């Protein structure tokens, strides 16, 4: 499979995530779009690791396994991020009875 298909697929996923962040006001959906962007990056990293492995397998038998470990660490960070972010959203809902991100404007005053 040509690597370009994977590049364009993950690019499209990433752009969908960006459009979601820009057009939605529900804080939870904005958060889900961030997860979508992280997954697009993960997919791209795995495709690149396999490409690197195909090109360098003769020299190094484990070529490309670092990228897959990077994906693993991205998942670790995403799990930690979700737990803290959802706690913040729950606190926002408890204080304003809404999950509208524009309520966070009040932080200015």
């Amino acid at each position: 499979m040509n690597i370009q298909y994977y590049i364009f697929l993950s690019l499209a996923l990433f752009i969908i995530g960006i459009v979601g962040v820009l057009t939605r006001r529900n804080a939870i959906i904005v958060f889900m779009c961030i997860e979508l962007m992280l997954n697009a990056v993960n997919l791209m990293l795995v495709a690149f690791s396999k490409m690197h492995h195909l090109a360098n397998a003769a020299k190094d038998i484990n070529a490309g396994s670092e990228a897959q470990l990077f994906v693993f660490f991205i998942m670790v960070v995403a799990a930690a991020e979700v737990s803290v972010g959802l706690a913040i959203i729950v606190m926002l809902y408890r204080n304003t009875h809404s999950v509208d991100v524009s309520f966070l404007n009040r932080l200015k005053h």
Partner: protein
Amino acid sequence: MGITQILFWILAVVTLFSAIMVITSKNPVYSVLWLIISFFTISGHYILLNAQFLAVVNIIVYAGAIMVLFLFVLMLMNLTKDTEPQKSKWLKLAGALAGGSLLLVLVAALRGTEQQMTELNTGNIGLIQNLGKVLFTDYLVPFEISSILFLSAMVGAVVIGKRE
């Protein structure tokens, strides 16, 4: 066109469709369900690339833990279509235009890159044996640091979510 190519195209179409449904559904619960479908198809992509460990971790961590957490919070807040905050039509149009132009620029920039192949359903770097060896020799310190990160995230979530 072999079976792996056909599978790739089917998975790609389902991934993009469910990702679009995530940002267009009015009901947030449907958004979460479409996002779960999207994560499952991305796991299918990982299996196609012979990265079995990441496919399993993706299902367990994303589709299992994180999405259940999202659904749990949504159910707790009792959000429905009526309480969903909406942006004005012009802001939505501006967001879509901004994303579309970014897509255009990136596609134009990456169109002329070198044509290289990625290997499908062969190669064994994605198996648990090889990844585990690399993880517990070269990447042992980041692995331990990530456990500290988890501990601090847990403490932070409890402190923020606590009712005063």
